[in-house]
């Protein structure tokens, strides 16, 4: 870890002022970083994957961005709400179980108590070749250096949305539940406030060093989840090698609007198998208007993985991802435990 300046922001304006407006921002390794829970930033700073000169602590903005609000139009989560706070919120658990479950199954209790929801959306991959700077082949860390994971140990790597540049997995859980529900994020930056569709925030794997469409200095302030008849009837299923405290091998966020056994609307996103939080629209289309049978769920899962590109050690994720989705769909439909 390199020495850095630490600034505490007491207002949005002071946070943005601290960020400044660099003429040539280093988008790969920004020289100024916002600090919320610190569970990711400090980790990557110790590893020297990130080495900002200045860190702006935004935890002082909690009164502004730390609330959970539920209205008829939907759910609003402040970006500084802690993971555990949202996971334990009775309203979230009742009306948006997929969100509460995705948070409760992530990380450890200690991390959930620290980590902010805004920061959680920006988790970086766990790929060793990215996190350990002594490795030479990582296009995400060093554009043009190659991808050692293509022919290395890649059991944990992604099969959906990958490229020849990068096959790393987006490691989070929460973003999947939000992408499934069509959430938007609110941001503030040097050029003002805006609202962005969360799914569109994540870039594809063609240029892996750039992960999001956030502008330099832009700060996530909140998350808006639209209401819908499917949100209450939802779940997050996470499959992993041990029961807790592990990243997903495969996960599925599923929300269903069912009427007399038929699917009016399905909202599906996949995790553990994809380069970014992955909305499975093909699977949703297969189910729309159909009865939720095992056969239809299987067909939907097959559609979701039609474009999968497995490598030597992660081919099982194509099968596991489909089975995970089928199990989640049947579970939400009340047909299995």
């Amino acid at each position, binding site marked *: 870890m390199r020495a850095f300046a630490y600034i505490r922001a007491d207002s949005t304006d002071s946070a943005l002022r601290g960020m400044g407006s660099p003429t040539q921002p280093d988008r790969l390794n920004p020289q100024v970083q916002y600090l919320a829970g610190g569970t990711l930033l400090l980790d990557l700073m110790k590893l020297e994957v990130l080495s900002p000169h200045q860190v702006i602590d935004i935890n002082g903005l909690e009164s502004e961005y730390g609330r959970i609000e539920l209205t008829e139009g939907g759910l609003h989560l402040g970006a500084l709400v802690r993971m555990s706070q949202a996971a334990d919120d009775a309203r979230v658990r009742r009306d948006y179980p997929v969100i509460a479950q995705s948070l409760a199954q992530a990380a450890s209790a200690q991390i959930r108590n620290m980590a902010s929801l805004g920061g959680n959306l920006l988790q970086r991959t*766990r790929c*060793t070749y990215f996190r350990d700077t002594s490795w030479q082949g990582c296009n995400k860390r060093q554009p043009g250096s190659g991808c050692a994971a293509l022919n290395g140990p890649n*059991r944990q790597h992604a099969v959906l949305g990958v490229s020849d540049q990068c096959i790393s997995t987006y490691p989070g859980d929460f973003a999947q539940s939000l992408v499934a529900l069509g959430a938007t994020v609110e941001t503030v930056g040097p050029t003002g406030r805006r609202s962005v569709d969360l799914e569109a925030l994540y870039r594809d794997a063609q240029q892996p060093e750039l992960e999001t469409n956030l502008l330099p200095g832009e700060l996530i302030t909140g998350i808006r989840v639209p209401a819908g008849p499917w949100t209450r009837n939802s779940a997050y299923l996470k*499959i992993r090698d041990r029961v*807790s405290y592990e990243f997903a091998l495969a996960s599925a966020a599923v929300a269903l609007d069912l009427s007399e056994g038929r699917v009016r609307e399905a909202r599906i996103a996949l995790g553990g198998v994809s380069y970014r939080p992955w909305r499975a629209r093909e699977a949703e289309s297969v189910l729309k208007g159909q009865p939720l049978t095992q056969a239809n769920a299987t067909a939907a899962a097959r559609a979701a993985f039609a474009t999968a590109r497995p490598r030597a050690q992660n081919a099982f994720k194509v099968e596991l991802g489909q089975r*995970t989705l089928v*199990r989640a769909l049947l579970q939400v439909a009340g047909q299995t435990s």
Partner: protein
Amino acid sequence: MKGSEVRRGYRRVDAVLKVTGRARYGSDFDGGTSPAHACLVTSRIARGRISRFEETPVRALPGVLEILSFKNLGGRIKPGQTFPTGGYMGSSVAPLDSTTIWYAGQIIAVVIANTFEEARAAARQLKVEYIEEPPTASFAVGHEGVDFEGQTEKGPAVGDAIGAHTAAPVKIDARYATPTQHHNSMELFTTTCAWKDGKLTVWESSQNVYGYQYGLADQLGIPPADVRIVSPYLGGAFGGRSFLSQTTAVIALGAKMIGRPVRLEASRADGFTIATYRAETRHRVRLAASREGRLQALIHEGWEVSSRRDTYKVAGVDVSTRLYACPNVASSVTVCAADRATPGFMRAPAEVPYLFALESAMDELAVALDMDPIELRRINDTQVEPIEGRPYTSRALMQCFDVGAERFGWNRRNPTPGSMREQDWRIGFGCASSLYPTFMAPAAARITLWADGAAQVQTAAHEMGQGVRTVVAITAAEGLGIPLDQVRVEVGDSSLPPGPVAGGSNSTASVCNAVAKGCQDIRERIIAAAVAAAEGPLKGMIAREIRFIAGYLVCAAGREPLRTAIARLGRGALESYAENSPHGTPAGGVAGMYKGQPAFTGGTFLKDRIQCAFGAQFVEVRVHERTGEIRVPRLVGAFAAGRIVSPLTARSQLMGGQIWGMSAALHEATQMDAHHARYVNTDLAGYLVPVAADIGQIESIFVPEEDSLVNDLGIKGVGELGNVGLNAAIANAVFHATGLRIRELPIRIEHLLERLS
């Protein structure tokens, strides 16, 4: 003193110190005053040499005091021998000796700075270039008819195994694999070194303080008397702190060079390459039996990986060929050299991989015979090992199976694979034998009994969490007839009377027998004075009828307070220095103990007999029939290990062992990038061990066993027993749940998925 009476109510004597943070571990010492901090720089290549080493700019960075490398330490540290070849080292590679790279993660430089952060930041800046050669990462595929290239040695053999296997009506021929594993103790590898008046003190968690003292003196070329190793508590060891690692001598020299104590706290990732580990193994097991299940042939071939420099092997055929009665046995072990660090002891080094293979094969044989796997073991049970015909001092394997089966509810098992279900989960019951050799080594202890009836025991045993302070305190309290809280125990310091390396589950048996001898000596001196006294209640009594109970000397005719009896000797304290030399100790074994080279005896090493502890492992697994997750709701183990000195700590050891076994079966594996011969999952997020949520119900049952031969106190040792065989029991349970035989560890979802419905 003999027997296996269960003592209840004893606590861990250091429990309060531990839970209040007052127990000091190796990492808790700072070397006196304001130590400087060291950070390691390790090689990113596995084979080749350093071609450029640019240290000048780093020396100018804030806080940097010194940079150690081949440039200033080349030739300064003597290459030591490894432990199996009579030395003290984990590896014969001398640290920072030259530009040659033997394995990835080898230490190539150490940056010393005023603070930890400065040292780490500077270490990152060091520019090193290499000339790289393609490494061999693991087993190299052999030429025709040879599985893997390596050096083969024949193991235990009797009869005509190949012929008997060919002729037998029922046979198994199967291959098994176990992965690379690392100890990953909670406590990191840390070393703090300080020099004062030419003498070196090292604070480092060690399960071998005498070995570290003599080995380090040898590396540095200084007299052993000038080196002291302090390690009162260890935050886990598991074999990983048995041998000197690559760091201690380097940090000692660094402290000398800057004239100030130096402290190293190596990172979790460094721990994967600076010390030893369990290397991956491969096995081919051929079993043959009569239709009644009587074994006719057992052929166990093992392949192991070692480093290019050192031939370390665990050679578990030594025990796997002796577990069952069998007239025709053959075995061999092949060691294959790779560009890796030298492996070393880890948690039942030989038994865990070799019994995975054997006990899986036994289950396969039971299936082939359509026989209950417990019955197959009963038919082949023996009190005499089959190779040389030596008798077991005691063996209660089948009693363990019977007690365990009863508690587990084995009779509820429907033998048809896949037949037991609950909702979406398939249920499997599995079992396997456990065995661990009862090793012993010479040990010494100094017992001091003060005039007030309190006692002190000093011995360089090692408190790794297994409870050595507790068993020593119990032994002394019983030996002197005083309350447990009147015994003070000092361990973990090379200035104390020598105790053996805490390995091979030998500590309790080795050390407690020495302590008991010292107590007996003190008792005899007190009694002699009491019966010879001119007056007093014991005057003229028969010496051997006098007992020491609860602070009194007691016999049928009367009793006398211990303090009164001590006072009669006219001294402030009575002291006894006891040495114990176990049965079979070779000539020079006791002298070796004083140089940190205790001669291990017992186990399978004896000419006249064989001594082992036994157990039966039972597990219930649940496999989700859609997504293939494996859960373990129940572990039941029944173990016969002679006299249990401290039921509380022994049960914890067995329980911990059972969890290890489950971990070895389902979680732990170090993954490697084979192109670079480098590990990739070098943290606790990637190297999986069970979390609390993975652990269901665990029962660890003591099966009563008296063994008057094994040693005076009848102790066998339980340190590693709970771990052995459980990996096979889980694989056997997975087979029972799913019908899928997985012969490779760890068992993962992908092994099951394609073949589940």
